[in-house]
């Protein structure tokens, strides 16, 4: 009895400690506000930034003499450049002395439809045709094909590396343990961050864009393949082994066929991740739709960015639907026994390929089938419509949007930001370390202290605090949405059926696209970045919470109901506490997503670290500062991830299953 009480005390006193820390912080903030806040002007550089810039210059100057570059990086760059250029020559760029690509629009539409038909079904094939034709109608055929070419190249390279590595990780525990933290890091790092270092190594051009895309797209390929291999029932593998299969036979005849469906899911995720990143790679001059959006964002041209954003969304939908249909087809084939009518299938495949070949030939030979007819221009209508809608919204919805903006800006964002940016840096260091110590333990506290010290050292203290404030505010909003909507759809099947597809769609969209309509509604402010981050991160959080609520054992809910609990009591005393693990996980994931998007928000007025990174791309003299800002983002991300991971571990330990 006494032991139990003693064990409980720290849990009970933790909230008091946190309140104490907060009170001390505010008291000291009032006493010391404005001191040691380490401000740094936009164009100002610290010696460190200058040194990083010089180091970057050294790399630039020695690119063709240093053996590592000469014999490794430059070959990698050359290979990827050639590969991407080749794919571009096929579908998007005039090539081989021709004024047009090898395959014109009609051929591309035909090929895409054939692939959709053969791997998916008629419905997605029609969707593919409609989607691809709409690229032309929007006046963005070439840009779309650039994006597609870059995406395809990155996906092929990612899968070529990711699937074998995934199989290895699935078979070998040691390799899996080795690769998992690396993948974690690759996925939690905001995409924005590694663009600049990559250009240093691979120059601006297709190679950097492709490698950046691969960094983002390989983790799902490896992870899901590994998971697919691991989920093959142990007994089935044993059955194969017990009959004397060789390791290769086990892989080819047992593991891979049983893992195929899940691996196709991995292919889908890889494609979606690649598309998302290819658009962001516009920041390092990757051609395609992303560049159109980026240029328009920079000039706050809502119409143009909406038009291009629409094309990206359409491409995302088409790619997602086709690969999802392919995954279902694998499953259907398994259930129905596809081998039953091989002849008929062969005739179908032959016919489809023949038609596609004819279309490709036509588009290769005739100009009308090669260049998308320019008369059919829907794009200008879309641009004008979006501009008008944005104007209308900004004037007529001003009361609402501005009210929301002011509420969150003055009620949440400004106080947060004021406390963080006006506190002396040593106070923030103390508060962060103490908080981490209370909620997560000594090791995490040490990590956090080092991270805060690094932020100071990187010379971007205030910008880091502004970004941190925006991230925390957006995360609070994400979790509010996540818990409310998550509990709702976790409890209500009908709501789940309606809302879940919306969330799924939201998750497949490239991050970039979210900025556009929100920019249209709210203009270029910090607030726009925060809302974009909320919109981007909320689906993940909502789904995780909903799944957690659904995962609560029916027996526990029934027992509570039988005891006469009200609905509110069931939610607050049974379901949410039992789903605590899922809620913490949602907070952790939400934080990751929010940080990534808040940084991208630097493009639309959020300023701070994201802006530093962007200006590092565009102005050579700020390159060192941009690189330092990238590092600061990584440090922030590491710190936040360390705390949320520790909370998750605690959540697991305290979960009702193992006993409080």
């Amino acid at each position, binding site marked *: 009895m006494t032991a139990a009480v003693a064990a409980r005390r720290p849990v009970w006193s933790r909230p008091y400690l946190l309140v104490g820390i907060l009170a001390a912080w505010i008291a000291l903030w009032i006493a010391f506000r404005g001191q040691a806040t380490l401000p740094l002007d936009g164009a100002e550089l610290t010696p460190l930034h200058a040194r990083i810039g010089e180091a970057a210059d050294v790399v630039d100057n020695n690119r063709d003499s240093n053996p590592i570059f000469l014999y490794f990086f430059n070959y990698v760059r050359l290979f990827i450049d050639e590969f991407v250029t080749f794919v571009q020559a096929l579908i998007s760029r005039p090539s081989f002395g021709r004024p047009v690509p090898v395959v014109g629009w009609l051929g591309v539409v035909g090929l895409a439809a054939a692939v959709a038909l053969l791997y998916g079904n008629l419905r997605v094939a029609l969707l593919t045709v409609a989607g691809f034709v709409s690229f032309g109608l929007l006046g963005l055929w070439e840009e779309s094909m650039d994006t597609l070419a870059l995406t395809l190249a990155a996906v092929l390279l990612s899968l070529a590396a990711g699937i074998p590595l995934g199989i290895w990780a699935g078979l070998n525990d040691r390799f899996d343990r080795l690769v998992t933290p690396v993948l974690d890091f690759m996925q939690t790092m905001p995409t924005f961050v590694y663009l600049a270092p990559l250009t240093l190594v691979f120059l601006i051009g297709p190679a950097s864009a492709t490698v950046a895309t691969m960094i983002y797209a390989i983790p799902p390929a490896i992870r899901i393949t590994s998971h697919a291999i691991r989920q093959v029932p142990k007994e*089935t593998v044993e*059955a194969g082994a*017990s009959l*004397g299969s060789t390791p290769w*036979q086990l892989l080819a*005849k047992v593991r891979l066929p*049983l893992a195929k469906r899940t691996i196709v899911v991995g292919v889908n995720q890889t494609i979606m991740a690649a598309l998302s990143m290819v658009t962001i790679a516009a920041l390092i001059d990757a051609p395609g739709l992303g560049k159109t959006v980026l240029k328009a964002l920079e000039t706050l041209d809502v119409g143009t960015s909406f038009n291009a954003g629409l094309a990206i969304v359409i491409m995302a939908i088409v790619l997602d639907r086709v690969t999802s249909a392919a995954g279902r087809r694998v499953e259907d084939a398994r259930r129905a*026994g596809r081998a039953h009518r091989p002849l008929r299938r062969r005739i179908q495949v032959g016919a489809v390929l023949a038609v596609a070949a004819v279309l490709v030939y036509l588009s290769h030979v005739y100009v009308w089938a090669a260049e998308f007819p320019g008369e059919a221009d829907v794009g200008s209508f879309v641009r004008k419509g979006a501009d008008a809608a944005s104007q209308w919204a900004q004037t007529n919805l001003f009361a609402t949007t501005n009210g929301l903006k002011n509420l969150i800006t003055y009620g949440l964002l400004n106080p947060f930001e004021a406390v963080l940016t006006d506190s002396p840096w040593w106070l923030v260091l103390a508060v962060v370390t103490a908080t981490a110590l209370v909620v997560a333990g000594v090791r995490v506290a040490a990590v956090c202290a080092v991270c805060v010290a690094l932020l100071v050292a990187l010379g971007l203290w205030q910008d880091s605090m502004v970004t941190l404030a925006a991230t925390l505010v957006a995360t609070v909003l994400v979790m509010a949405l996540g818990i409310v909507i998550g509990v709702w759809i976790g409890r209500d099947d009908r709501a789940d059926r309606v809302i879940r597809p919306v969330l799924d769609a939201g998750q497949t969209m490239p991050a970039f696209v979210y900025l556009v309509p929100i920019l249209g509604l709210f203009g270029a402010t910090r607030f726009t970045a925060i809302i974009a981050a909320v919109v981007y991160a909320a689906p993940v959080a909502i789904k995780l919470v909903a799944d957690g609520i659904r995962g609560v054992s029916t027996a526990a809910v029934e027992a509570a109901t039988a005891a006469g609990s009200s609905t509110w009591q069931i939610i607050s005393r049974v379901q949410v506490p039992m789903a605590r693990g899922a809620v913490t996980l949602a907070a952790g994931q939400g934080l990751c997503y929010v940080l990534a998007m808040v940084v991208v928000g630097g493009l639309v007025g959020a300023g701070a670290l994201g802006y530093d990174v962007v200006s590092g791309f565009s102005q050579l003299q700020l390159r060192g500062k941009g690189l330092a800002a990238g590092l600061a983002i990584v440090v922030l991300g590491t710190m936040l991830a360390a705390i949320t991971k520790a909370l998750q571990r605690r959540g697991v330990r305290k979960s009702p299953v193992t006993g409080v």
Partner: protein
Amino acid sequence: MTATSPAELPKALTEAEESVTLDVRGLWKVFGPRADRVAGTPLAELSRAELRERTGCVAAVRDVSFAVRRGEVFVVMGLSGSGKSTLVRCLTRLVEPTAGEVLLDGVDIRKAGDKQLRELRRHRFAMVFQHFGLLPHRRVLDNIAYGLEIQGQKKDSRYARAGEMLDLVGLTGYGESYPDQLSGGMQQRVGLARALAVDPEVLFFDEPFSALDPLIRRDMQNEVIRLHHEVGKTMIFITHDLSEALKLGDRILVMRDGEIVQIGTPDEVVGAPADDYVREFVRDVSRSQVLTLRWIMRPPGDGDALDGPELGPDVVIKDAVRTVLHADRPVRVVADGELLGVVSSAEILEVIAD
């Protein structure tokens, strides 16, 4: 001779030594860090819990030795966690044993290299699994032919063999189906046919019927008995179900915490439990169904008339009830013309009332 110990060892056991197929000697399986330091050292004397506390290792199989005769159905019985599934996997090296010998016809399979082990698995033994372990993307016929396929047999010959096996397990006409179109019992028949297709000497069954409904389980048990009569394979059968063990087993090995508690024929296990654990286990077994007259006969007394009906010592009690109760004098238990003892209504009623 008392009623609680067997009158003499069953004959088969004594004359069996040459016909041993599978001989397991001092087998250990220890999971955990540096597992090989346990067997043959003072650590081996520790109990499971102590060992775990001391070394972090779990001994799933502890010093297990037994011999299985050709054509025998040898049942390993124990509750979950007793190590029986690990034991059977050690015998085929699906799980690598930590120490000991597994002799198949005198050759230690632990010494086989990868290639030899594959040959052994391809031709000498086969296994049937609890959850069937079928390949869902293959037709039933292709599942059955899997073992032949990986040996490199031609399509025609392996399909011919698979077709025969399909008929043997009573699934004629289902060759084109896919496993998930079949019921659990039918799926396990496919698993059985797959194992039989390679014509192994020894068949291992890892709780093959635990995942099935009781009625289907009974069908499948009868199926195994039938197949055993028809193909006469040596079978090693893992189960947690006592009645299944009693029904199928020529001999039963009772396991607890990785150790052997008792090895014996069904009537030995029921009639002379080795310890309280086994006694508790067999308490609810209807003894008249399992025990033979050997277990209840008594030496003829002075007043006994020795001209009653005659029965053998291995007649199960329930089959003798009618004869004994109808006779007005004790039934004589006779083997090879020698009078072993007598049984009268009193002994029979005592067992039945139990």
